[in-house]
């Protein structure tokens, strides 16, 4: 296979994983809604438990996204993670507190008390989409780094580090660009919309479902407005590229259709259409930024900007990893099967009240 084909292929896989991650962050969106859509302990337990059965899927996707990015574009890994230090550390922090929150919140002896763990879920629910959104925003808006391979040839301590960050704010300076805020908040509202749709699909309780619909009435339009602001200010080129624009429109139509049947037809399966639309749209955006120029532009030295061609792994490694990628459909298949098995019956109040079996 051609080297450039492999690089594009792996960028497509990274884009797909990123897109799936955004969809799966319905868990985060759901967490941010717990206090609003539940009015008593039973309802709260119900919602926490339908989300709690999926959090690991999102978490694993994040880990895999990181691992796959490392394997296929190691220069991004070393440049961005080692540079925008505070941003990535903050992202890690909000995921660490999430991982224990479900399992510990209702257990005796949990040391911090249930309220603290519920606060962890809330923090993760808002901060994770915002931070990831803002960080991905810099794929389009740029970051402050330089890359110089020649540094390796210098053996004085501290002088041989290839990637350097040129801002003492270590990534936090991305917050001086309003466009990154726009994408961060867009992601908050998107995940809230998805979270509400997921709860509608998984909980058999009219009152909760009604409150979720109300959430969507606010969150979905807010998302659309913020996304449009971001697209017009940071990704304008996509409007002049027919193929990408067409793909984006497919995503948008799926999202709109899902929202329509949820809000006007009383349909409870809107998550699937909106989810598919989200995946298509995010996939398109990431694909676009990788295939047209630099996916991680440097604001201080354009020669340092990362493209999928100057930052990828070697041809050998990408080939080996491509064989590995043939296994992905099997992985998706058993995840799908497990989802179907676990969610075919909706969660009810009775289940929460009568079945104490490993509830969060």
């Amino acid at each position, binding site marked *: 296979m051609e080297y450039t084909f492999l690089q594009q292929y792996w960028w497509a896989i990274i884009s797909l994983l990123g897109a799936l991650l955004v969809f799966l962050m319905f868990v985060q969106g759901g967490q941010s809604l717990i206090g609003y859509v539940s009015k008593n302990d039973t309802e709260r337990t119900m919602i926490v438990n339908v989300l709690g059965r999926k959090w*690991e*899927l999102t*978490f*694993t996707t994040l*880990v*895999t996204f*990181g*691992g796959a990015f*490392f*394997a*296929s574009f*190691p*220069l991004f*890994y*070393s*440049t961005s*993670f*080692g*540079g925008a*230090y505070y941003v*990535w*550390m903050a992202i*890690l*922090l909000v*995921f*660490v507190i999430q*991982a*224990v929150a479900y399992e*510990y919140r209702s*257990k*005796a*002896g*949990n*040391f*911090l008390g249930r309220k603290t763990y519920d606060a962890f879920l809330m923090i993760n629910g808002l901060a994770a989409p915002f931070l990831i959104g803002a960080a991905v925003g810099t794929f389009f808006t740029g970051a402050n780094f330089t890359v110089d*391979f*020649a540094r*390796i*040839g*210098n*053996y004085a*301590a*501290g002088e*041989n*580090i*290839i*990637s350097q960050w040129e801002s003492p704010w270590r990534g936090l300076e991305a917050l001086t660009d309003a466009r990154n805020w726009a994408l961060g908040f867009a992601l908050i509202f998107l995940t809230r919309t998805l979270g509400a749709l997921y709860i509608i699909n998984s909980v058999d309780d009219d009152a909760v479902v009604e409150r979720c619909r109300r959430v969507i009435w606010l969150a979905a339009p807010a998302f659309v407005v913020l996304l449009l602001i971001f697209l017009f200010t940071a990704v304008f080129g996509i409007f002049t590229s027919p193929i990408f624009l067409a793909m984006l429109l497919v995503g948008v139509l799926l999202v709109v259709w899902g929202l329509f049947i949820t809000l006007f037809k009383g349909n409870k399966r809107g998550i699937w259409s909106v989810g598919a639309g989200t995946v298509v749209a995010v996939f398109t955006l990431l694909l676009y930024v990788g295939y047209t120029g630099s996916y991680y532009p440097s604001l201080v030295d354009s020669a340092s900007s990362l493209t999928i061609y100057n930052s990828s*792994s*070697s041809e*050998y*490694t990408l080939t*080996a990893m491509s064989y*590995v990628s043939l296994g992905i459909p099997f992985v998706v298949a*058993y995840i799908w099967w*497990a989802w179907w*098995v*676990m969610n*075919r019956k909706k969660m009810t109040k009775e289940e929460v009240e009568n079945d104490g*079996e*490993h509830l969060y």
Partner: protein
Amino acid sequence: MEDFNSVVDWSRAMFALTAIYHYLFVPLTLGLSFIIAFMETKYVRCGDEKWKRMTKFWMKLFGVNFAIGVATGLILEFEFGTNWSNYSYFVGDIFGAPLAIEGIFAFFIESTFIAIMFFGWNKVGKKTHLTATWMTAFGASLSALWILVANAWMQSPVGMEFNPATARNEMVDFWAVLFSPVAMNKFFHTVTSAFMLSGVFVMGVSAWFLLKGRESWLAQKSMKIGAIFGLVSTLLVMFTGDGSAVQVSKVQPMKLAAMEGLYEGKTNAALSIVPGVEIPSGLSFLAYRDADAYVAGINDMVEEAPYRMEAGRVAIDLFAQYKDAQRVGDTEAMNEIAEIFKDEEFKKEYFANFGYGYLNSPEDIVPPVGLTYWSFRVMVGLGMWIFLLFIVSLWYNRGGRLERIPRLWLYLFLWAIPLAYIASQAGWVVAEVGRQPWTIQGLLPTVAAVSRVEASSVEITFWLFAVLFTVLLIADVTILSKQIKKGPSDN
């Protein structure tokens, strides 16, 4: 310069902190998942609800421990980028692959089937549920395989070639990376030691129930399963531990010398048990299967280091020349240099010492000897003690005579739980402290591997995570003890 050393120190502290915390939770996940799978298999075969109740009890403990293992694991993966930026570029072409494979295959198996294992009792059939439990156990060990392949590669870099055009090492043989003898040994040694720890955990908790006179049937059966599983694992740990020593002598002679506190090299080197007590020619035999073999000492290697530093700088300078040629567009010189990097002789004499070129003084190659020496003895000593406890437990358990076991033994079983954790941590101290200063043996020392972050930034994140992990550890331990005290539930 002073400032830069503290960047290196804080980055090492940060990584050590997360690795140590992570490994407090991993071994129990690895082993207990299999123990649970055995118990559930028994339940599915005989249909006796007592077995189901027992499975569920241990599963509850598994869940508490699993969550925090996941939380601490996430940081480790990303820390290669955040704190070891140069490392992750210099060898990312090789090192990234096992991490990605771990995510794509192992983690998804674990996280998908664990949901069925916990919440699927009433949603899927008995056999499907059992399959899910086995898949969770299998997934956990599979993830251990890939991360240990990655770790082993750092200790013994194989299957790659340096490419001056990209300024990094590039994979040329995936199978050499996967099936490197160091990797295979490390995997089996680590996983079986994790099984051993889990055996101790189950045996100790069961002993507590017997001491309290509660859950007699469950405790006796569990103890038997834990002890058999543990005993078999211990034998494998010994076997693979011996194999590890042979590998270390081949690829990391300095680590071996530090493990033994051997300063002057000699033939018929003795194996130190503790200072003053030794087995004549034991080390020579252990490392080389030959009592007369010569074992190099720390001082010998320090003496040799200046030559290696010189050779390393030749390789680094050659790379710098390549970059100069590239700057002026001299493709002929570039091709010539690229060929030199492919030369087998050059690889062995010069490139293998690439990392030495970044060192300041020959003494930099010596790891903390005392810590390595004593950790090794703590690991082996506690391992032996635990081996004895498994045998005692099984001796009293023959024909169901566990009621007559002296209470002292039950206390010893219980107290063995923290000892097993200390032993497994000590093992990692030997492996990781003993290989300092290398992030990649011979090729990249910590001083050239870090990210160019201010020491204060790393210090902030260090304390942040130190406090967070400590708080979560306290929560984990108190929840576990409450769950144990509550015992199995009866609904």
